[in-house]
């Protein structure tokens, strides 16, 4: 525990900051060898996400992943720009998932730390930072494309294209298990859950799968899922869809499905720590569980079209440093950095406008799961989401395996109108968002 405190409690910022008076600098320097390169040519990248509080599971593991990314990149000589090599340093700011603190943090990162790029979780916090982006032209990224709108050209959704990739899972399900025709769904009533509900409804309709009941919404504070599961099972569905639920919901829901005797198909956006679900249920119960986030030790990720440095080694290193913390956010922020780095090196500069231009050149980009296009005018009002293929992952004999990569734009070309219809019904189109 002491090591955790030291690691989390003393950041580099403390050393660099002028107010580091509390601790003798000599003593801390020996604790933090990483601080050594602070004097050289350094590019600072802002990390503006919840690092404490209930939403911190969506921020903190991402910063941990970025630290590994930075160490690797720095060890390999740093970012190669026109004026030589630069080291990368991440500067975190804990916004506590509060828009006011996001604004303060964005101001600090842009105007005091002079970062070149800011990664955010987005959601509630993005509107707080938006005026800073509009005024300073700083390049921002979000994990939630629903933050995109035509009036902020410098906000990108380059990794997660939640929730539209969920259509790939449903499409795969319909192709491979065509006899499953009825479904039910539950979702938490929040900014992540609702657009995902609309997506799944569109995908099910496109696949000819019938919803037996309106999606069941529950409050994000729910802990006991027995009533939710009882209700879903009361219509004898062939498919249970868990929408985009956090692992705090996915695990107890699966456990309840198991205990209440469900034996059918489950489809979900996420299944972080699915080994634990396996332990709480059974290998047979989880067989065929479909979701969208591969393990990074999956051999399929070593394919040439994957744009992520050594995914297997990254996963290993991460799990070594932060046992039991691996999840989707662990790699997503790092994969955004890969994209950013490629663009910065192409542009020869780390300036936000140059990087943005290089990134979007030709309307194509290197998404982690293969080459993709800048897309989204229809749904988000601006082509700032990097959308291409997305993996469909299925649990087989207790291990998650990528069963294929499916194209989101291809699905959309066929069924775009359905998506728009359901998104509009849930008030999720960009021009409906107040």
């Amino acid at each position, binding site marked *: *525990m002491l090591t*955790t*405190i030291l690691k*989390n409690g003393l950041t580099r910022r403390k050393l660099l900051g002028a107010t580091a008076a509390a601790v003798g600098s000599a003593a801390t320097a020996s604790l933090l060898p990483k601080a050594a390169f602070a004097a050289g040519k350094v590019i600072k990248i802002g990390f503006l996400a919840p690092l*404490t*509080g*209930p939403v*911190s*599971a969506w921020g*903190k*593991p991402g910063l941990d992943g970025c630290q590994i990314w930075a160490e690797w990149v720095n060890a390999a000589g740093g970012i190669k720009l026109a004026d030589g090599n630069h080291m990368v340093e991440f500067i975190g700011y804990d916004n506590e998932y509060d828009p006011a603190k996001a604004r303060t943090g964005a101001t600090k990162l842009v105007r005091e730390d002079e970062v070149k790029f800011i990664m955010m979780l987005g959601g509630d916090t993005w509107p707080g930072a938006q005026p800073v982006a509009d005024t300073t032209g700083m390049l921002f990224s979000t994990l939630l494309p629903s933050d995109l709108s035509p009036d902020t050209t410098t906000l990108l959704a380059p990794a997660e294209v939640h929730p539209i990739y969920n259509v790939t899972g449903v499409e795969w399900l319909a192709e491979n298990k065509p006899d499953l025709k009825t479904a039910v769904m539950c979702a938490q*009533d929040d900014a992540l859950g609702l657009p995902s509900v609309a997506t799944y409804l569109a995908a099910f309709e496109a696949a000819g799968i019938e919803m037996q009941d309106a999606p*069941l*919404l*529950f*409050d994000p*504070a*729910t*802990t*006991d899922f*027995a*009533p*939710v599961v*009882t*209700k879903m*099972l*009361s219509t004898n569905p062939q498919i249970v869809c868990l929408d985009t639920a956090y*692992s*705090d*919901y996915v*695990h*107890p829901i699966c*456990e309840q499905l198991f*205990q*209440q*005797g469900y034996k059918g198909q489950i489809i979900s956006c996420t299944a972080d*720590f699915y080994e*634990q679900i396996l*332990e*709480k*249920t*059974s290998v047979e119960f989880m067989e065929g569980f479909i979701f969208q986030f591969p393990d990074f030790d999956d051999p399929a990720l070593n394919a040439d079209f994957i744009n992520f440095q050594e995914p297997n080694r990254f996963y290993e290193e991460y799990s070594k440093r*932060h046992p*039991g*913390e691996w*999840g989707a956010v662990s790699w997503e922020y790092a994969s955004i950095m890969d994209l950013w780095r490629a663009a910065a090196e192409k542009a020869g500069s780390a300036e936000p406008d140059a990087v943005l231009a290089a990134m979007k050149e030709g309307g194509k980009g290197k998404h982690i799961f293969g080459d993709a296009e800048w897309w989204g005018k229809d749904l988000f009002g601006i082509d700032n989401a990097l959308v291409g293929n997305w993996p469909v992952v299925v649990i087989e004999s207790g291990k998650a395996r990528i069963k294929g990569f499916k194209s989101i734009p291809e699905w959309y070309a066929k069924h775009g109108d359905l998506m728009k219809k359901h998104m509009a019904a849930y008030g999720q189109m960009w021009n409906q968002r107040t």
Partner: protein
Amino acid sequence: MVELLAQTGLNAIYAASYMSLVAVGLVLIFGVMGVINFAHGELFMLGAYTVVALYADFQLPFLFAVAVGLVFVGVVGLGMERALFRPLRDNPLGGLVASIGFLMILQALAVMGFGVRMEHVPPVTQEVIVFSEKVRLAVPRLFVIVAAVVLLTALWAFLKKTRFGWALRASAQDPEAAALQGISINQTSRIAMFIGAGLAGIAGALTAPLVSVNPYMGHSVIVSAFIVIIVGGIGSLEGAVVAAVAYAFVHTIVTTFWDGVIADIVGLSLMLVVLIVKPTGLFGTADRA
């Protein structure tokens, strides 16, 4: 339909059980000490983390971990009484702030010791009692129900039949008169705090394999517990149990037949209605401000 109702009934009984454990502890602490323990949800969380540490990490027997959870959280309660609530006895708002401060400390300690991610607690048993194809009760849930019935009955007997219980009830009713009768307020506060915290601890410990254990899990518990003790009447243990059962049934049934968000609105509205009709709650009499 019958099956659906039966299953819903079982779901509600389970919810009522753990909610009663938490709410009764909260009521006991408020009744005897006159302080609102905002950290009660975090004591629940602490009980769950005891099971994470002993049962999941050190692989000691589950029931041993639960027993340790009861005692350990009870002792933490004693510590709170001595360090926070006793010096602040004449200052209930101070006690409230102190419990808020303590809540933040417990959360931060949980984050630093275990990380922000949810913890994994392996199932104690996967056995399920099958009444019919669609009416089932998992054995770990039965544990919670049995524990609630046994502990609350024991508490009831303790309060009604023993001298300590008599003293406790006396000082809950009228602390000054009780002090005049030679009842030590320190003593009754200690007992109330130990029992109240211990009940929250054991509720957390028993439900640890069933819910998502994370440092912020206390949050959702405390809100329902507040609703329950308000509806029941703040000083009343019987009221807390009755209200917990009523609330659990209403919430479960509304969730099953409409949805979870509406269930929350219905729960809160019911509470307001009770307060408007009978501002001291269903069983409350004493006016403790």
